């Protein structure tokens, strides 16, 4: 250990540390400056960016020895006396922070820029922030914020009047802590005496193993307190997201099914667990030949992954409507094609992290998660405890996108903290986060679409294979969702859609923004373009003709009450025409750099498929007059901490600023269901609204007044105004409920769904979100590179609860869709870091023109539907349509990387006998 002195945010600081320790770790762990985030420890993400001697650097790459004598500034040093800097204020008001995990890095990179250039251009902003990755925002609002530093009047809104919170662009109510570094994420806080846990993972895709004696290891490393194995699991050694499927062990027993599966966990002081190498552990492995990819797992006599799944088939999903062969007979344009997509990684910048402690006969886990109640119930089974004995206290979530629905650190922490009766913490590093957590399902789809000479769709026949990897995870949802959505958002009289999910010795595939729908959209919209071309109808108009409309029935026979796709397409029509014409004109003279504009459409059922997925919310009033919303709807960056408050405030009739929020903690909030499936705005939005209305109803009844009365929320009292009369309710005089509150309203909503029959007929979702997007792309024919120049995105959200948040979701979805289209492919065992696995940078995301369409859903709160997943699904089809106009190549495999596109361009020239270079 050596002593190092430096100036930290203006204060002389001394620290004793090993000189080689990363500055980021010293700042966080030794000095408590956790505003600096760690996303990769490898300089790939920029989350840990700080200023050292006036230059932005990745503090994960700086040995603390090099900071000796330096001036270091972290995000905590930007605000002065608690007042946000102009830059932070702009980030807050422009919605530049969603989950907030990259925000400190973004802010530090931006301050470095602004210190040198107080009036930067967009390109200069790109260059300065190119080293910080964001997975939520699509970067556009970050750029806007920086362009408006010091002049944020355009983004500043008045506090909405009572009853007008819904639909306002209210800035995030928890936004300030996301820009000043004070928000607490999974890795940011644990008791001083917490032990550290590190999982030791399988180095093989398929193997049996046996464990030896751990005592010698403990002797060698006195800091090693314990090693937990499957034998330490008190209850069921299995987890999984479905109530009846618990196939993934918390710690493997004798057999592993993928490389990265947790085998044992070592617990001790940080020094010890980070010094022990995996090879030192007494684990003897017998490697076996894995079954991987699309063919081998389902081949005859393939080794089986799970005893109860012969042939490695998880399940089939079917939707049958009408008669497809008859439908094809009445078609004049019929196209059949095959499409393929790979694993896609969520790429949230916050790796999984948390800590647990045993409190008597209960276990408490603070963790980054999307689904506190699911976590609670799963941990209860693993621990052999009643669910009420488990408390999940979610931390802020640094991005989820479906990847933090499944358990990760939770069971390991619970088992260890329970056994040792000491607090235990764990933070995954980037490599294990990527190697061990779920991915988007790779798909192989063959589909056939037919339309008549007027362009009306007649028939769709779809078969899709989905690789669910080593464990079920969300595989059953994907196999259900895909055939339901397979046609795309169009009216089709005859449909036969079948999906199949199978196991392979690969990283488990689970939930990722869209649950298979983005994969299906690539297929249906490519075929839409092909039919449109054949019958001579403009691609956008072809979709407009076929857009499913209110009152029409889906492939599952569900009659829609809200369907705004036609309006989305109408909103884009003008840009579409202009951009297409511009591209055509450009291509008249261009040789190797060509332009193209494509359109993609999508739909997405909001909520779980054909099963109950209720949400319950409460609003309570304390004797002193404090009004609190208790929301279990996790804010994973999408803004539910704000939108739920907006819904509850308007339901109750209170101003936003008078309403307090308690969120996430399973001891304090009711089950609102998971933050996934684009369900929170629709489902929990209803629950929040109803909770407000319930409480308001109680108050009005107490005052014995009619519906039109208003409530004034005062200190210790409520005053109900009804016309000229006022009624005062003295809160102190009311009898207190269990939690000390005197009034409590409850809201409950479960979307109206029906199970599907054997032909997949029924009402799987309460409502659907719709979208159309257009992409203007530039293709370098000689290199096969694609640059998206601009995008238009029109989304039917029923009713926007908060347009600022809706735009943020659209931008972020487009960015992830662009990644899926052009660069993202996770190759198990090969791309487990953020330099081999590419997600879009700030320079890759173009201008996005957003159009919010509101075709109200009768069962939605104020008509609202979801936006989270719809934002992503249409992007890849739109980009691929653009590539077609530019090159004549129909993209059939995502991502369309430069080498794949160049090969396709060359192949097409070969076919046409055109050797023009």
């Amino acid at each position, binding site marked *: 250990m050596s002593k190092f002195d430096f100036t930290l945010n203006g204060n002389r600081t001394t620290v004793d540390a090993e000189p080689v320790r990363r500055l980021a770790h010293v700042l966080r762990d030794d000095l408590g400056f956790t505003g600096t985030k760690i996303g990769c420890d*490898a300089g790939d993400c920029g989350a840990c960016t700080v200023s050292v001697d006036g230059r*932005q650097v*990745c503090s994960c790459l700086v040995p603390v020895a090099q900071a000796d004598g330096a001036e270091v500034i972290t995000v905590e040093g930007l605000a002065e006396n608690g007042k946000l800097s102009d830059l932070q204020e702009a980030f807050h008001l422009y919605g530049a922070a969603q989950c907030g995990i990259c925000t400190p890095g973004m802010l530090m990179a931006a301050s470095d820029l602004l210190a040198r250039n107080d009036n930067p251009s967009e390109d200069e902003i790109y260059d300065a922030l190119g080293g910080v990755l964001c997975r939520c925002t699509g970067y556009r609002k970050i750029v806007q914020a920086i362009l408006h530093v010091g002049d944020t009047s355009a983004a500043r809104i008045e506090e909405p009047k009572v009853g007008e919170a819904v639909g306002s662009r209210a800035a995030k109510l928890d936004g300030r802590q996301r820009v000043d570094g004070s928000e607490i994420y999974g890795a940011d806080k644990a008791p001083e005496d917490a032990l550290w846990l590190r999982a030791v993972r399988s180095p093989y895709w398929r193997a049996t193993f046996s464990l030896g004696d751990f005592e010698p290891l403990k002797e060698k490393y006195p800091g090693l307190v314990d090693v937990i194995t499957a034998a330490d699991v008190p209850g069921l050694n299995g987890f999984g997201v479905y109530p009846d499927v618990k196939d993934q062990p918390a710690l493997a027993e004798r057999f592993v099914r993928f490389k990265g599966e947790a085998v044992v966990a070592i617990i001790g002081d940080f020094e010890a667990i980070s*010094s022990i190498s995996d090879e030192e552990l007494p684990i003897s492995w017998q490697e076996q030949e894995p079954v991987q990819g699309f063919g081998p797992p389902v081949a005859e006599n393939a080794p089986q992954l799970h005893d109860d799944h012969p042939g490695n088939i998880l399940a089939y999903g079917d939707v049958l409507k009408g008669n497809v062969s008859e439908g094809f007979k009445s078609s004049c344009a019929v196209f059949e094609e095959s499409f393929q997509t790979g694993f896609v990684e969520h790429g949230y910048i916050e790796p999984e992290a948390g800590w647990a402690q045993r409190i008597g006969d209960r276990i408490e886990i603070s963790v980054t998660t999307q689904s506190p109640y699911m976590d609670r119930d799963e941990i209860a089974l693993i621990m052999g405890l009643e669910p009420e004995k488990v408390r999940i206290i979610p931390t802020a979530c640094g991005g989820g996108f479906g990847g933090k629905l499944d358990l990760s650190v939770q069971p390991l922490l619970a088992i260890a903290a329970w056994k040792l009766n000491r607090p235990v913490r764990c933070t995954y590093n980037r490599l294990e986060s990527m190697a061990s957590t779920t991915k988007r399902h790779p798909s192989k789809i063959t589909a056939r679409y037919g339309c008549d000479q007027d362009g009306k769709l007649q028939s769709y026949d779809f078969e899709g294979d989905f690789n669910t990897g080593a464990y079920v995870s969300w595989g059953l949802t994907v196999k259900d969702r895909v055939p339901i959505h397979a046609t795309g958002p169009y009216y089709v009289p005859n449909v036969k859609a079948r999906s199949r999910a199978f196991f392979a010795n690969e990283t488990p595939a689970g939930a990722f923004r869209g649950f298979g729908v983005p994969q299906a959209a690539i297929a249906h919209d490519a075929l839409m373009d092909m039919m449109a071309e054949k019958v001579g109808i403009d691609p956008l108009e072809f979709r407009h003709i076929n857009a499913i409309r209110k009152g029409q029935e889906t492939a599952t026979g569900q009659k829609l009450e809200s369907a705004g796709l036609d309006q989305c397409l109408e909103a884009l029509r003008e840009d579409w025409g202009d951009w297409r014409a511009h591209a055509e004109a450009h291509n008249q003279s261009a040789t190797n750099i060509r332009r193209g504009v494509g359109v993609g459409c999508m739909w997405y059922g909001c909520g779980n498929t054909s099963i109950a997925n209720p949400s319950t919310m409460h609003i309570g009033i304390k004797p002193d007059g404090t009004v609190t919303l208790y929301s279990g709807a996790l804010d994973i960056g999408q803004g539910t901490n704000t939108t739920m408050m907006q819904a509850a405030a308007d339901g109750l009739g209170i101003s936003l600023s008078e309403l307090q929020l308690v969120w996430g903690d399973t001891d304090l909030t009711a089950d609102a269901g998971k933050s996934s499936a684009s369900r929170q705005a629709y489902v929990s939005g209803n629950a929040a609204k109803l909770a407000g209305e319930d409480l308001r109803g109680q108050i009005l009844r107490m005052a014995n007044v009619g519906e039109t009365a208003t409530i004034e929320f005062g200190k210790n009292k409520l005053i109900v105004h009804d016309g000229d009369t006022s009624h005062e309710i003295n809160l102190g005089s009311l009898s207190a409920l269990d939690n000390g509150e005197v009034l409590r309203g409850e809201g409950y909503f479960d979307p109206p769904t029906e199970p599907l029959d054997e032909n997949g007929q029924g009402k799987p979702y309460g409502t659907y979100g719709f979208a159309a997007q257009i992409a203007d792309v530039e293709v370098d024919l000689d290199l096969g590179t694609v640059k998206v120049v601009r995008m238009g995105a029109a989304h039917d959200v029923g009713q926007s609860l908060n347009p600022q948040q809706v735009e943020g979701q659209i931008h972020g979805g487009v960015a992830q869709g662009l990644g899926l289209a052009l660069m993202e492919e996770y190759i198990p065992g090969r791309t487990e870091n953020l*330099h081999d696995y*590419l997600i879009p940078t700030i320079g*890759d995301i173009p201008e996005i023109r957003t159009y919010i369409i509101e075709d109200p859903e009768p069962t939605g709160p104020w008509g609202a539907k979801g936006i989270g997943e719809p934002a992503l699904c249409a992007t890849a089809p739109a980009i691929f349509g653009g590539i077609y106009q530019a090159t004549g190549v129909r993209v059939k495999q995502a991502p369309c*990387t430069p080498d794949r596109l*160049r*090969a396709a361009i060359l192949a097409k020239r070969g076919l046409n006998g055109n050797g023009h270079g």
Partner: protein
Amino acid sequence: MTLYLQPNSVEEAVQALAEHSLFVLAGGTDYYPARVGKPLDDDILDITGITDLRGIAENEDHFHIGALTRWTDVIESELPPYFAGLKLAAREVGGVQIQNSGTVAGNICNASPAADGIPPLLSLNAEIVLASTRGEHSMPLAKFIMGNRKTRCARDEIVTGFRIPKPQFPASSTFLKLGARKYLVISIVMVAAVVENDDGKVGGLQVAVGSCSAAAKRLHLLERSLVGQPLASGIGDLVLEEHLNQLSPINDVRGSADYRRDAALTLVRRALEDLVPTS
């Protein structure tokens, strides 16, 4: 206990290397990424205290780039057009954070086949200067880099800098990098080119291609065949597939070998066209 030595002079540094087996650390931008989730248990020689080794100087017949020159220093230094390619490459080394920390010598000594700094330095005919207690010596950069992460840096040596000979004629240079995204991208192919303008003719030409072989390679055949040709629009057409024969690209997650060969040809042609004077 591991060692962490911080010499302030080359003499101290080479003395330490003579006495111990040490990992030489400068900007840290390659050291730490290779140790994610692993213990930091190397004995370290942190040379960033040797401030003499930072900066770019012009001498009578050559330029000298100090080993510890940061990529940001390259970007911000006033340099003739001869160095335009090196400056372009500097802007491609990671993000600004990496350019602020990472050193020119570190990028070279890490010897990744995709090191952004190597093709431009090869195209500048850089000599690398090494020091040890045995003395100082230099060698052509092309000789120094033996392959994928392999160099001729002896265990007891440090790199002190690079000597860039001045061109005979007015020279300009460029750098083209092909990757699947805009920033923070490991290249699929990159090309650095320097051309000397001998009164409208190619007076000298150096072209280096990276990410297409275990170590970046100069295209000597091409260079020789173009000397004396008019430095005019269309020069790219003179580049033939066989000029790239010495490349040996591989298939990996970033691209296929065939694609790399094909893209390298395109980029070499474009680089040469870029160097044609506009007037």
